[in-house]
């Protein structure tokens, strides 16, 4: 039995289902991230675990104990909020001491524990500062220390980095991970930022519309997405909708292109599929104007014109128009990208084993369109 178990959890707000029949197990000392777009139910799940919402159906078990109907103040959880939620009238130290003082611990113990936690989050000199005297990043560190002070069994983090600027976000994210590993704390982290989720988690639950699409390790989620949604939401990808000509040979007719993919055992010939390739799997090469205009694209070599070139430091992102309706994205190491410019004719290539093939039903093709329109 896992440390924290969600059994068949559902939550309805009126007639709307925020979360539908979710089963989720979190192991001791694990860092699990709930990742998904807004409205997918991830925060609702976290709030049900914290005790701020009561599930409409199902049970929550912590350490084999049913805590479904237990009040939030009686649950051994520590929570970190997006808006920090530090008590404005208390100093950083008083904020950290708040939870322990409720437990009627001796004063010396409280003082010692506060000092210990301030050191853990690297803010030993800020104990007497009030929240309004601290930066956003510092406030969130204090909030983390405050949540850890009560020695919770599970640490819950609700988009803790969303209100911070990019640089602080990365450093604090590493800090959270370091602290979690140091204390061997079980943590559940909610975010809509896939990069954050990939960087920080032991496992990620990708969520959409109140259910879990895929629950896996970050590497698996990225390189081997099981659903169209997971593939579209995590990382960016080039997508081809088409029909699988030959599952055994790995041939797929998508638009005007006959794509070579790896042989597909689980799919049948003639099935509607979505073929995905990550931008970093693309390679770029020169081509002549004639070749480009003839549409002479064979196999996984597709010709087109560079429409946009974005230098992103270690790599350069090219948006290449390959036909009227389609733009492919290629991330090329910046050293190789020097020779390519906007309006240049190029060939994009990708190996068959870089292609992910997913069966596509009609609902999902709509979903893909929705996600595409959002990301564009």
């Amino acid at each position: 039995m896992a440390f924290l178990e969600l059994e068949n959890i559902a939550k309805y707000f009126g007639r709307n289902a925020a979360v539908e029949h979710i089963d989720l197990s979190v192991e001791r000392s694990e860092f699990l991230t709930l990742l998904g777009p807004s409205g997918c139910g991830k925060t609702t799940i976290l709030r049900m675990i914290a005790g701020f919402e009561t599930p409409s159906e199902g049970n929550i078990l912590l350490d084999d104990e049913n805590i479904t109907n237990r009040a939030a103040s009686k649950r051994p959880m520590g929570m970190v909020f997006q808006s920090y939620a530090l008590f404005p009238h208390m100093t950083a130290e008083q904020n950290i001491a708040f939870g322990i003082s409720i437990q009627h611990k001796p004063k010396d113990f409280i003082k010692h524990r506060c000092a210990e936690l301030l050191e853990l989050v690297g803010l030993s000199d800020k104990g007497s500062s009030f929240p309004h005297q601290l930066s956003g990043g510092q406030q969130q560190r204090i909030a983390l220390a405050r949540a850890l002070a009560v020695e919770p069994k599970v640490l819950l983090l609700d988009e803790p980095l969303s209100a911070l600027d990019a640089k602080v976000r990365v450093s604090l994210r590493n800090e959270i991970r370091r602290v979690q590993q140091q204390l061997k704390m079980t943590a559940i982290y909610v975010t809509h930022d896939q990069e954050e989720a990939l960087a920080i988690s032991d496992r990620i639950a990708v969520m959409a519309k109140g259910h879990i699409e895929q629950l896996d390790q970050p590497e698996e989620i990225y390189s081997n997405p099981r659903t169209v949604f997971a593939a579209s939401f995590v990382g960016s990808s080039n997508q081809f909708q088409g029909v699988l000509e030959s599952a055994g040979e790995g041939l797929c007719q998508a638009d005007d292109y006959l794509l070579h993919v790896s042989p597909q055992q689980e799919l049948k010939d003639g099935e509607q599929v979505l073929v995905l390739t990550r931008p970093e799997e693309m390679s770029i090469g020169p081509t002549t104007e004639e070749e480009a205009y003839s549409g002479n694209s064979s196999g996984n070599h597709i010709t087109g014109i560079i429409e946009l070139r974005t230098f992103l430091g270690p790599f350069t992102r090219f948006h290449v128009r390959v036909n009227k309706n389609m733009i492919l994205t290629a991330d090329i190491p910046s050293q190789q990208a020097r020779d390519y410019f906007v309006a240049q004719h190029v060939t994009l290539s990708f190996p068959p084993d870089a292609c992910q093939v997913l069966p596509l039903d009609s609902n999902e093709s709509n979903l893909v369109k929705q996600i595409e329109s959002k990301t564009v």
Partner: protein
Amino acid sequence: MEVSSQGISKHSTANAAISPTHKNKPARRSFGLDKIVLILVMLYLLVPLGATLVFSLNNGKNFGLSSFQRIISDADFATTFPFSIELAVATTILMVILITPTAYWIQLRLPQARPIMDFLTLVPFGVPAIVMAFGLIEVYGSPNALVSVLSLGLVPLLSNQLNVVNTPPLMVCAYVIIALPFTYRPIDNNLRAINTSVLSEAAYSLGCGWWRTFLTVILPNIWPGIISAALLTFATVMGEFTVASLFSIYTFPIYLNVTGQNDAHKAAALTILSFTITLICVLGIILLIRFRPGGAGKDSQIEIGTAK
């Protein structure tokens, strides 16, 4: 008793900090309409006050403090003034105890009830005090069968057994209703400003129960709103005439009215006296909020004027 109707905020200090940059602009153009308007407003506020002060010091023949001496030695002043203060304190305490947890609860658990509360708190503006006073006297003075049933027997109990008609306790209850708009709004605004639900959830997650959260986390952060509410309630009661007059209870405003009819100089001195007391109260409270630990008061606004 009057209370300055201007909100006092940190903006005054912010303006002071910004003003040096204005010096770069041509000085003559900046000395224009804004300063004239400011001077006119100051005159509008201060001239009547100054005139009242002069009038209070003038006993018709020469200047002196005789009006003030007459007030201090007046037995009616010695009884009505403390009595009105007692009424005001009682009303303020009852009001804060009733409204603060209610506003917190609505904010936290019943946001859908807010429109109803907004409407209820506006009713005292729409219904004149004289209507309420007559209503109270009518309902509690001679309760009929329908009122008895509708109030679940409470009205007959209060009027017959406890004999509340025309008593200070009933008047305090009436004052609570009159001052409702001045109390609910500043407290509600303050609760909205501090992100009440997230702060409460943070406290719960640290093992703190509802009441303790309210007392140790929420209350210290809405002091400015409560102080505003208390101040407005206090001032309203200190100046309330209609209900007291119809209840035939001799309070400070009635004493002020009677005095005004007999001795105008003494009435002017009374006005100055009550104004000074209010001013000291307001300044004291502002200083208290500004310089308390945490300095959160510096960021909050005392909404004295907004409700009125």
